[in-house]
């Protein structure tokens, strides 16, 4: 596609971006409630036993495994938030299981990288991340 062909960061194979990520559910209604009401992501549409969310232009596809081989936990997705302390407090208030309080993972050149791990309704480990500029 011409609009992306000049993107210098583009893959030599022509990969422009990640369009979608699948997340296996054991109860799609429960998972839909979690991603919509707890994480606050916009629900795009549902199709049968699948629910599609938007996260900053990447589509999350929630649905049951189509074969036993695929029935395993999700990759860890690291969701960016502006204020990790506030987001952590909010998750705690909403009863979300937290791995450990927010911690400084890596001091980078221009910012500190903070993360906090949590469990979604399906037992997947996810993370919030925030890049805090050095003052």
């Amino acid at each position, binding site marked *: *596609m011409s609009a*992306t*062909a000049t993107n210098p*960061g*583009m*893959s*030599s*194979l*022509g*990969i*422009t*971006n*990640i*369009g*979608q*990520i*699948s*997340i*296996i559910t054991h109860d799609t209604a429960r998972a839909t409630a979690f991603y*919509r*009401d*707890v*994480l*606050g*992501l916009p629900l795009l549409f549902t199709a049968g036993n699948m629910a599609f969310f938007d*996260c*900053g*232009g*990447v589509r999350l596809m929630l649905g049951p495994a189509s074969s036993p081989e*695929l029935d*395993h*936990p*999700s*990759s*860890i*997705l*690291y*969701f*960016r*938030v*502006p*204020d990790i302390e*506030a*987001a952590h407090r*909010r998750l705690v208030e*909403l009863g979300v299981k937290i791995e450990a309080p927010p911690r400084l993972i890596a001091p980078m050149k221009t910012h500190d990288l903070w993360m906090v791990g949590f469990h979604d309704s399906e037992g997947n*480990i996810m*993370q*919030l*991340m925030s890049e805090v500029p050095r003052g």
Partner: protein
Amino acid sequence: MNMQEGTTLSRIGQIAINAHDVDRATAFYRDVLGLPHLFRAGQLSFFDCGGVRLMLDKAEKPEFDHPSSILYFQVGDIRAAHKRLQDGGAKFEDDPHVIAQMPKYDLWMTFFRDSEGNLLALMSEVPRA
């Protein structure tokens, strides 16, 4: 009751992908998928995919040692990308096919395995003429 101002999940910054051999996986993501390699930090290898960072890593514990979520990589020309990936040695599960007819475009997909056995996909939204 959901995440409020300051706590909004704006976008995905990073995705962890389990590898059993980080060198082998780095070669696959760099040379076969052709993604820009950002940096290496010990057993961690970082790539950029359109602003999302991919982190290749060995699982720290047996409970974390499971395949990746299916990541659907968007391409402009799925047939050309399929052919190049196949030529690069990637194992495909199927040929590119229409998976859904959306109002304005056909959604094409094809599924393949990375060097670590993770199931991944190419996707392409082909506008209806």
